[in-house]
């Protein structure tokens, strides 16, 4: 049977990318800094986010979306820091996508917020393909995981903007080689910014707060305001 070729040249993620772009424009217009968190399950995303929200809440208006396959447990934990928390339960889906973010934002006044954090489903593979419209993607790696995790999951580390090594209070007990972890992160993402933190003791968190404060100070809306 004869066939003919029809050229498409269409990006598979077109729908998600378009939606993510629209979200990014909304975030920029509202002057809100959006940060997503990715990591394997159990790397301490929620504990880290609790500290972040708690640290920023006195001075800034913060909100969080948190993705999990099931339960509202993480949202309940995060609500201790701010009331603006919504859980996204994905059912069997292993990642968040732009459509889920858009739906979860329903009814929130974005311009009345300074920061929005999006905690992705614990997974180092699938979230890398989905743009959520965030300004920064943090990838977390805990001291109790192997130093070679970045080498095993190069795509997600490469697609992220900032690496955060968590549970540093346990580094010694876990014989975690932080220099090797840093080398491995830089191998998959040259010149990546790396932070070493402990959500438990609070060590290193000030540097992360500083990064976030600087981001807000340099957001397009503020630049616009200062030029007027």
């Amino acid at each position, binding site marked *: 049977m004869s066939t003919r070729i029809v050229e498409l040249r269409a990006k*598979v993620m077109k729908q998600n990318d378009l939606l993510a772009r629209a979200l990014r424009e909304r975030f920029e217009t509202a002057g809100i800094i959006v940060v997503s968190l990715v990591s394997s399950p159990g790397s301490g995303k929620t504990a880290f986010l609790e500290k972040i929200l708690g640290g920023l809440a006195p001075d800034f208006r913060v909100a969080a979306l948190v993705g999990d396959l099931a339960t509202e447990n993480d949202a309940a934990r995060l609500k201790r820091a701010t009331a603006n928390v919504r859980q996204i339960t994905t059912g069997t889906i292993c990642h968040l996508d732009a459509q889920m973010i858009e739906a979860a934002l329903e009814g929130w006044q974005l311009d009345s917020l300074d920061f929005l954090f999006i905690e992705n489903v614990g997974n180092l593979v699938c979230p890398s393909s989905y743009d959520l419209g965030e300004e920064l993607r943090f990838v977390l790696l805990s001291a109790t995981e192997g130093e070679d995790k970045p080498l095993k999951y190069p795509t997600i580390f490469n697609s992220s903007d900032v690496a955060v090594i968590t549970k540093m209070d346990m580094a010694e007990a876990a014989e975690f080689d932080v220099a090797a972890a840093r080398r491995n992160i830089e191998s998959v993402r040259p010149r990546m910014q790396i932070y070493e933190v402990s959500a438990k003791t609070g060590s290193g968190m000030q540097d992360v707060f500083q990064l976030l404060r600087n981001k807000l100070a340099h957001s397009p809306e503020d630049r616009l305001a200062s030029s007027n």
Partner: protein
Amino acid sequence: MHELSIVLSIIDEIGEESEVRGLNKVEVVHLKIGVFSGVDRKALIFAWELACEGTSLDHTRLDIETVPLIIHCAVCRQDRTPPSLYQLCCPECDTPSETIVSGRELEVVSLEVAA
């Protein structure tokens, strides 16, 4: 395993194009998948067969062109293939590079349809 979600996006794209262009039965779908796209070839084919069963795309074949990871070396001023997916540096001069030229593709290139 997000390949099923990816496959559903591909099926939507084909459905839209078929309707707009009034295409006959799609025999082959030509895809380009970068090794750094986060999508696994085997899982994608498995999900494809599962999703197409009993639909108008039943027995439609996926033809996947794998795109290698290429980085740009600012020192050599050349596009290079890094030593591995987890060593993003120039194989000649060892300079780390964050400039990815190709390898992230996830694209429906063309369809082969019954004439």
